[in-house]
C-alpha cells in the first residue's frame, strides 16, 4: 500500500485564484512526480524532482504552474491563476529512482468554478 500523502483531498477555486496542493513522498523516496488526470481518465505528466532538483517538466508547467520539493518540507504544486480546464485529479507519485516503481498518493481533486 502506498504511503504517499497528499493534501488537501479536495480543492475548490474560482477562476483566476491560486490553487496549492502538497505531497509528502514515501519515506526514503528521493524522486517525486506530479501527474494530472482529467475527467476522461487521460494522464498528463507535469514535473518530476530528484530531491530538490527538477528533472523534467512540460511547457504547461513552466507558465502557470510552479512546483518545488524543499528539503524537510512537503513538495507542492501551485497553479498561479486557475482556469476551468485545470479541473482534474492531481496525482503525486514517489519512487526510489527512475527505474523503480512509482507509488501514487490518493490525489487532490481540484474543481475550478
Amino acid at each position: 500500500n502506498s504511503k504517499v500523502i497528499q493534501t488537501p483531498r479536495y480543492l475548490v477555486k474560482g477562476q483566476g485564484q491560486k490553487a496549492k496542493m502538497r505531497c509528502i513522498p514515501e519515506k526514503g523516496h528521493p524522486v517525486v512526480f506530479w501527474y494530472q488526470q482529467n475527467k476522461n481518465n487521460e494522464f498528463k505528466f507535469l514535473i518530476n524532482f530528484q530531491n530538490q532538483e527538477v528533472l523534467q517538466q512540460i511547457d504547461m508547467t513552466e507558465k502557470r504552474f510552479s512546483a518545488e520539493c524543499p528539503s524537510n518540507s512537503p513538495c507542492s504544486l501551485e497553479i498561479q491563476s486557475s482556469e476551468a480546464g485545470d479541473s482534474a485529479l492531481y496525482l503525486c507519485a514517489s519512487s526510489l529512482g527512475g527505474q523503480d516503481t512509482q507509488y501514487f498518493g490518493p490525489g487532490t481533486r481540484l474543481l475550478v468554478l
Partner: protein
Amino acid sequence: QQQVRQSPQSLTVWEGETAILNCSYEDSTFDYFPWYWQFPRESPALLIAIRPVSNKKEDGRFTIFFNKREKKLSLHITDSQPGDSATYFCAASVTNTGKLTFGDGTVLTVKP
C-alpha cells in the same frame, strides 16, 4: 501521435472467465511497462510490471505477455472476479527519466 494505446476501451466478462487487455506502444526506448488499476474515486495502484528482458511476467491470476518485436503487450486475468472490476492502465517509461506515459485505459466489468 499517442505513444501508448490500449484496447478495448471497455470489456465485460463473466466471473471465472479470462479477461485479455491489450496495449501497444510507439517508442522503442521504453524499457519499463507497469500496469496500474484504478477503482472509482481512488488513485492508481500498481498491479504488475514487466521489463523487456522478459516476455512473460506472472503474479497469481495476472500475467503480462510481452512482444518486443511487435511493440505489444497484453494483460491476462484468469478466473476473473467481480472485485477485479476496475479501469486498467498500461503505462511505459524510459529508465533515465522515469516519466510514465499512460494509455487511455480499459474499463473491465466482471459480472457474477
